[in-house]
């Protein structure tokens, strides 16, 4: 039974049992708060979300995070009394705050700062020496704690205890001497620790990785997807001048809720450093840069295709197209077609990143974002994490086959390494230098997840879109595959990646039910069962 209540003079309907603060948010009223977080629930300690309830006996202040809506409730979130109550909470929190905003990582996205602009904008009434507490404490591999900035909202404590399942922070002391700290002799080692930095409404918990790197307002935000494991958490990539500075989770109730693991957030260094930027060909003993035109003729020659004209699979040399399971759906789709229609090729998708752990929160053992997508395309997925399936590749290559390796930016596993050692001729599509690009006869500089516009399908069949956060440093893999396809088949190339997605929907039954070009920010669930193949 929905209930009817009045918020700021407007009648609204809300579900029975809903929290007032959530109902306000649904109707575009952001009630200020520190301790409440939708992923953690209410705690009621910060007193910032006070609003005024209008009753027959007059106004009464109360906190909206602990108020369950009821029929006939009348609320004024911005009455003079409510604003004064919140302003005084803000004043109390700032009484002993160090005001080191100019050197604080949180500046620009600090709740305390923002609410000061909204509520107070006064000089402090207190003129005593501010409290000294510990600053810049190293409390674990990922975090730095500043006790002076802390507002003691308890979010980090509650997150580690209630969500991450590892109680590693607590509030010691009491009253004005209370402070956040680790347990004696222990560190914060949770694999989800950096969520506490996002949760921290102030700069008390900062990430070692991002510390002092950039003012937050200079960062460009791009909605994308984490490619570190098969969960595919919705992420926001924050970048500046072609470099990634920080990756943070985005709320996606279907995939990751509000959280992400530390590994996923920090898995971006390979994007920023040591990137391959031009095509290269082996000439004599050395691998030297070449033009795109040279590269295309070289690859055609290598595959035994005539210099020009239509494809002729019969005369083509035997080859294996080996895609990383980190490749996008579009790349897999076009290379599959290339293998099937133009080349004498076996198309395989490899899992090559060593397995991690599956936990009860987010992390999946399979550390590839698109294994499920490959299965849904009907591609054979082989396991090169432990070497079980290396013979599948070597067998298909035979004695003189050409190996086209696509998307192996990181993690050249021993099994993959053995295949590379065995293969006579290798074409690498890769954005990062590795033993693969060293051994290749030809290298196309590929893209990383941060430059791609493409789809990945998580282990539950949820399709999400990677969006380019930084300018491409190499060539888009799907464009190369598409260019080869169009020249070999004599058809028009796809105008854009959206046309490729359209083709996938038309051709692959598993994706027939979902509009791949209208996935939105949080993606969509494709067919629940993988198609055979």
């Amino acid at each position, binding site marked *: 039974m929905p209930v009817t209540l009045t918020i700021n003079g407007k009648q609204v309907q809300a579900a029975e049992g809903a929290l007032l603060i959530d109902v306000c948010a649904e109707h575009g009223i952001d009630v200020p708060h520190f301790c409440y977080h939708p992923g953690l629930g209410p705690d*009621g*300690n*910060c*007193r910032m979300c*006070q609003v005024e309830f209008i009753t027959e006996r007059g106004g009464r*202040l109360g*906190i909206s995070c*602990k108020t369950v809506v009821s029929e006939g409730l009348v609320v004024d979130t911005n009455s003079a009394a409510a604003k*004064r*109550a919140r302003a*005084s*909470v803000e*004043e*109390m*929190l700032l*009484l*002993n705050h160090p005001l080191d905003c100019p050197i604080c990582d949180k500046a620009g996205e600090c709740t305390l700062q923002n609410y000061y602009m909204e509520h107070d904008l006064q000089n402090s*009434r*207190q003129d*005593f020496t501010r409290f000294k507490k510990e600053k810049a404490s190293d409390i674990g591999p990922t975090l730095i704690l500043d006790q002076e900035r802390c*507002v*003691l909202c308890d979010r980090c404590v509650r997150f580690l205890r209630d969500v991450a399942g590892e109680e590693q922070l607590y*509030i010691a*002391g*009491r*009253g*004005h*001497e*209370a402070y956040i700290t680790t347990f004696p002799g222990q560190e914060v080692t949770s694999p989800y620790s950096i969520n506490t930095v996002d949760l921290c409404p102030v700069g008390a918990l900062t990430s070692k990785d991002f510390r002092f790197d950039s003012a937050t307002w200079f960062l460009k935000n791009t909605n994308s997807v984490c490619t570190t494991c098969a969960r595919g958490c919705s992420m926001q990539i924050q970048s500046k001048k072609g470099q990634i500075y920080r990756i943070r989770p985005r709320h996606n109730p279907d995939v990751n809720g509000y959280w992400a693991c530390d590994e996923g957030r920090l898995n971006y260094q390979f994007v920023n450093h040591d990137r391959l930027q031009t095509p290269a060909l082996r000439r004599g003993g050395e691998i030297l840069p070449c033009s795109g035109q040279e590269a295309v003729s070289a690859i055609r020659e290598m595959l035994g295709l005539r210099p020009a004209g239509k494809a002729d699979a019969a005369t083509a040399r035997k080859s294996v197209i080996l895609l990383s399971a980190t490749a996008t759906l579009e790349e897999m789709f076009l290379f599959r077609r290339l293998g099937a229609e133009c080349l004498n090729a076996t198309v395989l998708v490899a899992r090559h990143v060593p397995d991690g752990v599956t936990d009860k929160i987010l992390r999946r053992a399979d550390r590839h974002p698109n294994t499920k997508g490959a299965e849904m395309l009907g591609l054979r997925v082989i396991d090169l994490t432990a070497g079980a399936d290396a013979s599948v590749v070597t067998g298909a290559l035979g004695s003189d086959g050409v190996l086209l390796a696509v998307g192996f930016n990181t993690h050249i596993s021993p099994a993959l390494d053995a295949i590379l050692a065995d293969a006579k001729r290798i074409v690498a599509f890769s954005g990062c230098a590795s033993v693969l690009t060293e051994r290749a006869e030809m290298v196309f500089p590929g893209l990383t997840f941060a430059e791609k516009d493409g789809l990945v399908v998580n282990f539950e069949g949820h399709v999400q879109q990677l969006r380019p956060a930084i300018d491409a440093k190499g060539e888009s893999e799907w464009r190369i595959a598409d260019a080869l396809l169009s020249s070999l088949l004599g058809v028009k190339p796809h105008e854009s990646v959206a046309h490729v997605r359209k083709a996938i929907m038309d051709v692959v039954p598993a994706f027939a039910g979902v509009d791949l070009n209208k996935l939105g920010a949080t993606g969509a669930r494709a067919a629940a069962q993988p198609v055979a193949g």
Partner: protein
Amino acid sequence: MSHTIISTRFDKKDNHTLAGYLANGGYRTLPKLFGMKPDEVIEEVKRSGLRGRGGAGFPTGMKWSFVPKNTDKPKYLCVNADEGEPGTFKDQLILKFDPHALIEGIIVCCYAVGIKTAYVYIRGEYDFPIARFSAAVAEAYAKGYLGRNIQGSGFDLDVVVHRGAGAYICGEETGLIESLEGKKGQPRPKPPFPAVVGAFGCPTVVNNVETIAALPWIMENGAAAYAAIGTEKSKGTMLFSISGMVERPGVYESEFGVNLWDFIEKSTGGIKGGRKLKAVIPGGSSSAILTAEEARNVNLDYESIAAAGSMVGSGAIMVLDEDTCVVRALEVVLRFYAHESCGQCPPCREGTYWMYQLVSRIRAGRGRPEDIDTLLAICPDMTGRTVCVLADSAAIPTASYIKKFRPEFEAYIDKANPPERKLMPGGVNLEAGAH
């Protein structure tokens, strides 16, 4: 003092033992109790008009009736023996000299509400009271007044003595529950109230020692007899802990409705050394101060004291004579609340210490003229804004001390005319006692 109920047996020899208590008429109400239906007991307590003696004065029977009748969860009683309000020292007398009356009262409450386990949360510093009460509990178990099938009634009840660990805030009912559960003693936001979600997530009654200790008398003599004592809304009697500059400080019992100053003067012999009365703090350190004139003209009952702008609270009456410094008194009170704030809510965590800093600066002769108004301005920001009323407890005395004795504060700020330094009652040495 025509009536004594709670303190009747305090001076009876060996009353703390089971044999002594039985000889003094103890446990006589049990047959009558077990002959009644639980609901009838609740009704009886409601009719008696008994109100909580811990400080809030909430009607006891009504509190019990908030406990859900049909629940598959166990229910608990928490007896609040944390006695932390500065100036209060009455519950320890019950624990020491009439422990079986408390046990008997616990049986009454638990039978009425359907409780099988009662926790008695005793202030950690109370070594001797804890020993006395624990011995009484052991004796009661041995003789079948606790445990299974009490006195053949078929009613089972366990009493667990829990020793607190020294925090004022654990006397707040939900702070007490958190502490009892083994957590940091921090009050919980309400609702839900303990009657619905209390100890270990179960319905829980939290009552003060003195409240529970009044129950045997009510059961024995009937609600009407209890309600006949006192005033229309303040029924029965209460123990008052009288301290400060009086000849004979101590715990005195009185029915409600007597004149406050008459009662103090008659029971304690009046102000020490024949000096003049300056003020009375009627209900513990968190209550508003009354001037000498107000104290002489007010009656000692919930309504009259409330009408005078203060409260009966836990019955801790503190008397200030003409030589006592109100500024220092406030400094001590604020230091206490700043020290005892649990630190959850910003207004209390920061506000109590800020007020202490301001008053401390004034007392030290470094106050600024605007400090007094700043203090008054902070008070409303700390009233009714927090999870529990500790912030209010600091704001109420601050506002009232300044309002009623402003010239004393101004004198400290007036550098040309600084007052002579004077000590608090009992000669508390502030400098040595800094926390």
